[in-house]
Structures are given as structure tokens and as C-alpha cells.
């Protein structure tokens, strides 16, 4: 029932495809107004339990608070760059909350909020984007791969890790996050194909936010659905409303359960929208109309759950404010730490290239240390950067 049933005719020469993309009913539990859908998904009771739903709501609010604060920090120059996940909070929350501690997450540059929701300290989570190191958290301790920038290249890593866990007999699942644009890369194809051949316990979650920087989905694929690619791999393909966190949790839960049980990989396409420009450096007005953004602001994943929780009496103004406070506190703490200039040490440049540095690296390290010492002495740090201005 979560399997994709694709009207083949609709996949060819259908100009309206992109426009009607949202409406060719992806699976969902709640409609965009927060009301359960007739004949929609039927999640298990545990998922609909009050505290579970509230945990989801708090995660959504936290993701929103994280993203809002990070956006402010980058504007003020405290981060090198920031790709916002505004509008994709349901995917961010579901990606973090659907996993067991032993499961591995393979995030992209856009998934910093999911890292925070997995429990990683925001300073560690934002280290890459702050520019003080490439990865700030202990990837092994957190079972979370470094955020990946070369598109789709993390997909085969997720497959390899899942295959390794399967070989070791461990009940570990790998969740690989990808964007819609990344599905055009060869690595995506090779990873999906080998995952299916190996029946590796991996789940591919494509956050289809409709854009790859400026390139809209219709220039990325001629198919009506990205989930349809599952067919070619002999892998279930699921198309779900990416702004319905309950539907996402249900679909991810099914896929993870299947993977953990030896049922192999699943491809999930979550239909959502990138509310902000690609990054703070991007100018979205060059390629899309604000009316489109407005349309999607009306499909906000946070509001949607709030409306539902309110309707079923789980949420009132008081609790909502309290949860908002949590987010505000979290954001304030983030700012407190990230507004400070990070400590960096050039010795770091040499200590991890190899398990033990080559003679050549030792020599280069000595040169840098001498320069640093000299700069210290002359108290003219800048001189050491001459010509880099």
C-alpha cells in the first residue's frame, strides 16, 4: 500500500507534471490544513500517542528555532555559509526521530537541524558551516556521517555501512538523506542499484524541495515521480507528503522495519519545498516567483501539526508557548556560543592526514609552527597572511 503505483502515461510529455506535482497525491496522514485525510495513511497507535505527537511537535519547533537562529547568525557573519532547511522541518525531525541510537544517519549540508535533533551539540553540528573544521562532531559516537557536500556521494557510503552491519549481524539501519537534484548523479544510481542487489538495510530519503539551487525539478527529471526510480532497482518506491511529519514517520518506520528485518532497501520521496534561497549567498528572485513561496508558506509543516494537535485537544496556547520557550532557550544558547570567534589550531592541519604524519608533513608542520611562533612574537598575526587579503 505504500508501494508506488505509477501511471506510466503520466510520466511522459506531461508539461503540467511539475505544476501538479504536489497534487498527484503523495501518501499522507494529515492534509495541508492539519486534518486527517480520507483513506490516507493509517499509522500505528504508538505513533499517534499523545507524548509521541508532542515530541514530534517539539522537534518541529526546535528545528524551526535552530534554522531561524542559524539564518540570523550567518547574516551577521558568524557562519561562513548556511543552507536553510526552513519549510523542510518535518523531514528534518522525522529523519532524526525515526532512527534507533545504533542506526546511522548520512546527512547533507542542508540537514544541520536533523543533526541537532539527533542530539549533537549545535556548535559541533555547525562547525562545517562556521568554517572552523570540516566536521565538528564525533561521527562514530553519534552514528552520523559527516555532512556531505559532493552530491549523492554519501549514498554508496550508506550502502556500504548497511552492508557491513548486515554482514556483522547487527540490527543497524542506515538512513541516507538526499536532495531532488542529487538523484540525477551517477552515484545515486549506483548506490540504489547495489543496495538492492545486496539487499542492504538502507533507506534513501529524498527531500524533494523542488529545486537544485536555481534548477527546478522539471529540468531535473522527465518522470512524474522520483520514487518511481525504485522500479528500476527492484526496490519499493514511496512518495509521501514531506510536510506531514506523521505520514513521514509512518513511511520511514515501515521502511526501517523492513530493512531491519532483512527486507532490503527503500526509496522514499518526500515532497516539500525550500522556503529560503539555496544559501544566504543565493538570490532566489532570479529564478522563482514569491507567489510560489507564499503558496508553500501556507503548507507549513509546523503549523500543520499544531493545528491537528489543537483540534484533538493535545495542544493549547499555554503548552504551545512553553514549547516555544524551549526553542527560544535553545536558540539563545546557540547564539551565545556561536557568536564567539572559534578556537582553531593550525597543528590540526597535519595531525589527521594520516595515522602518523609522513616525514614531509612533519617538516611542513614545523614550518607552520615556526611561522606561528614568529607571528606570536611580532604580535602581528596578520603579517603571516600577507597576500591572502
Amino acid at each position: 500500500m505504500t508501494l508506488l503505483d505509477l501511471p506510466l502515461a503520466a510520466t511522459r510529455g506531461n508539461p503540467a507534471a511539475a505544476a501538479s506535482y504536489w497534487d498527484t497525491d503523495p501518501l499522507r496522514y494529515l492534509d495541508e490544513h492539519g486534518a486527517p485525510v480520507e483513506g490516507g495513511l493509517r499509522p500505528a497507535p504508538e505513533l499517534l500517542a499523545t507524548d509521541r505527537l508532542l515530541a514530534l511537535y517539539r522537534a518541529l519547533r526546535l528545528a524551526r528555532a535552530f534554522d531561524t537562529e542559524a539564518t540570523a547568525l550567518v547574516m551577521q557573519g558568524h557562519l561562513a555559509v548556511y543552507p536553510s532547511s526552513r519549510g523542510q522541518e518535518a523531514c528534518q525531525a522525522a529523519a532524526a526521530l525515526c532512527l534507533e541510537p545504533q542506526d546511522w544517519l548520512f546527512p547533507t549540508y542542508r540537514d544541520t537541524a536533523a543533526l541537532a535533533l539527533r542530539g549533537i551539540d549545535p556548535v559541533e553540528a555547525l562547525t562545517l558551516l562556521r568554517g572552523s573544521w570540516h566536521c565538528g562532531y564525533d561521527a562514530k559516537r553519534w552514528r552520523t556521517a559527516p555532512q556531505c557536500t559532493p552530491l549523492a556521494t554519501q549514498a554508496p557510503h550508506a550502502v556500504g555501512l548497511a552492508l557491513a552491519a548486515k554482514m556483522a549481524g547487527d540490527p543497524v539501519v542506515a538512513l541516507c538523506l538526499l536532495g531532488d537534484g542529487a538523484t540525477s548523479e551517477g552515484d545515486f544510481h549506483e548506490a540504489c542499484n547495489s543496495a538492492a542487489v545486496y539487499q542492504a538495510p538502507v533507506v534513501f530519503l529524498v527531500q524533494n524541495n523542488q529545486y537544485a539551487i536555481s534548477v527546478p525539478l522539471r529540468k531535473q527529471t522527465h518522470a512524474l515521480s522520483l520514487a518511481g526510480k525504485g522500479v528500476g532497482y527492484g526496490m519499493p518506491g514511496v512518495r509521501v507528503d514531506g510536510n506531514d511529519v506523521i505520514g513521514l514517520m509512518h513511511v520511514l518506520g515501515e521502511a526501517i522495519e523492513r530493512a531491519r528485518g532483512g527486507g532490503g532497501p527503500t526509496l522514499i520521496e518526500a515532497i516539500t519545498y525550500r522556503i529560503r534561497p539555496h544559501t544566504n549567498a543565493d538570490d532566489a528572485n532570479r529564478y522563482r516567483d514569491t507567489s510560489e513561496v507564499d503558496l508553500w508558506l501556507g503548507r507549513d509543516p509546523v503549523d500543520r501539526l499544531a493545528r491537528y494537535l489543537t483540534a484533538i485537544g493535545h495542544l493549547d496556547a499555554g503548552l504551545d508557548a512553553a514549547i516555544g520557550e524551549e526553542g527560544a532557550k535553545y536558540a539563545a544558547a546557540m547564539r551565545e556560543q556561536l557568536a564567539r570567534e572559534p578556537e582553531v589550531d593550525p597543528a590540526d592541519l597535519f595531525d589527521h592526514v594520516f595515522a602518523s604524519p609522513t616525514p614531509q608533513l612533519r617538516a611542513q608542520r614545523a614550518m607552520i609552527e615556526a611561522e606561528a611562533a614568529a607571528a606570536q612574537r611580532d604580535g602581528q598575526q596578520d603579517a603571516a597572511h600577507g597576500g591572502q587579503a
Partner: protein
Amino acid sequence: MSVVTASPSLPATPSASTPAPAVPAPAPAKPATVTLAKALNQALADAMTADERVVVFGEDVAELGGVFRITDGLAARFGESRCFDTPLAEASILGTAIGMAMYGYRPVVEMQFDAFAYPAFEQLVSHLSKMRNRTRGALPMPIVIRIPYGGGIGGVEHHSDSSEAYIAHTPGIHVITPATVQDAYWLLRSAIASPDPVVFFEPKRLYWSKAQLTLPVTTGPIGTAAIRRTGRDLTLIAYGQTVPVALETAEHAAELGYDLEVLDLRSLVPFDDATVLASVERTGRAIVIHEAAGFAGFGAEIAARISERCFYRLEAPVLRVTGLDIPYPPPKLEHWHLPSVDRVLDAVEHAMTA
């Protein structure tokens, strides 16, 4: 035999070997102070005007005009069939260009950042560089791959690589990198007009550097280095992003009483032995500067050539001031990696007192 269906007597498809219309193209413009980025944009526009076989494509090049705006306005002006966005897949971007060149087009493709050209490596090494040779000239590859390269812009991982050594070691491809506004325009026009594939490394840190550009401009054929400053004591050899570093070093060195010559290679392949060796024969000393890791970097080739061919003239070892042999550092640490004026000055001191 009657089973044969193909007839060789067809009109030939538009020929890629037909030389492109003479460069430079249209009416002389009045002098203008422009950025290096704008000069590249102008070169693309003029090349597209001069030759309808020139098409520009890549990621985000159409509506957005490229993340660095180098293709700004081309889609609007020439239409989306002349400048278009591709699906997000670099191997197929280059592979598509190869197929279009087979049919007679002259594609100019953009790789968004240096590290994002790596997925196209197989297409580059196994096809782009070999197709003309493989077919004894029947299928030339007049293709330009534009790659913004180098660091110093505060970019996070994968946004500051310098991959020129990989390409320069691959026979069959020309490798060019401009350092001035004039060369940016002229060398890109020349690259597009070239009958052979060119990897065109754009010094992204210099995109916003400005100078006067008066069209038409001619700065010298592909394969020739430029002497940016003449000097008697030592030759600084740089290209792309390190040319300003070399020039600034020469200024400081002058204060110390050293008269340095500064070469801007411009073309790594073909390599201008004549200019480089003549300079070192004059000065007797040489220092090579580039951002890429030093080990097995392009500077090794330069140093090896000079050391071999100027053996009896050299008064000091040829030194290399390059990036460290480490993965490119994060923004907060990259200044330790990049060849700084101070480091080059130390090398000058070393060479002059050797």
C-alpha cells in the same frame, strides 16, 4: 553488399574542424573598467555572437547566470537552446558536450566548483583527451570546460581545490588559467576558438578584481607566458591566483634590494619553455608559486624542466612555494595553507643567499 544501409555520400554534418570565425568579434567597444568576471561574461557573449555553434551549458547557468554570474544574461539574450541548465550530473554534462562536438557544435560547459568536476574525470581522461587522436582527427573536440578554481574565498570543504596537475598530466588537453582582466577575455575567446579541448581554470578569488578592458583586445596566443615584471635577480613563476602574490612579493623584494622578474604562465599546456627558460637563463634563479599541494604538483614539472635545461646557469636550487600536502583546510585555517607573500619572500631570501 545489399545488407549495407549506410551511405557515406551524405552531406557532412556541420564541421567542428571548420575554424571558428576570426577572434575577436564584433564592433570595438569603448574602454571600460570591468571585473574579471564581467570580462569572462563578455567573452562568452561575444563568442556566442560570433559563432552560432557555440553553446553554453551546465548547472545553474541559465536563469541564475551561474553561482558566480559568469553566464549572466546569456540565456535571456541567446535563448535557452544556446545557454541552458542541465540535470545535476557532471559526467553527463561533459559527455553531452562530447556528443555535441561530434556533431559539430562548440560546447562551453561550466563545472560549478573545482571539486565538482571530479565526477567527469573519466569522460575527461578517457574520451575528451583522446577522441581526436583515436579517430585520427575525424572527431575533434573543440570543447571548453570552465572551472572556477583555487581558495582564499572562505569556502567550505570542496570549494577551493586546485586540480590543474591532474589535467596537465593528461595528454590531449590544453590547460589555461588567466590572471588579468584582459587575459580573462582574450584567453577565453581563444579557448573557445581552439580546435582542441581546453580546461579553463578561472581564478575565483580574482573574479572581482578590476581593470580597464578595451575591445578588441589581444594578449597573445595560447601557449605563451607573459612577463608581468622584468627583473635581473630571480624569476618568480606563477599562474592564476598566485600572480598577484608574485607581484606583491616583487614589490617587497625591491625594498630589500632584490630585482625580481615575474612570469604569468597563463598556459600550463602547451608549456612556454622558450619564455620560461630564457628568463631563468637571464636571472639564474627561479621560484615557482601555486596553491595546489606541492607534492607531485604542477610546480614539480616547472622545477624539473628548469633544473634540467638551465642546469649550468642556475645559481640556486629552484624552489617551490605551494599549498601544503594536506586536504584543503577550512576557512578559518586556509591562510596557513596558501602561499603567502611572506613565504615567497623567505624563499627569495633563501635563493638569493644560496
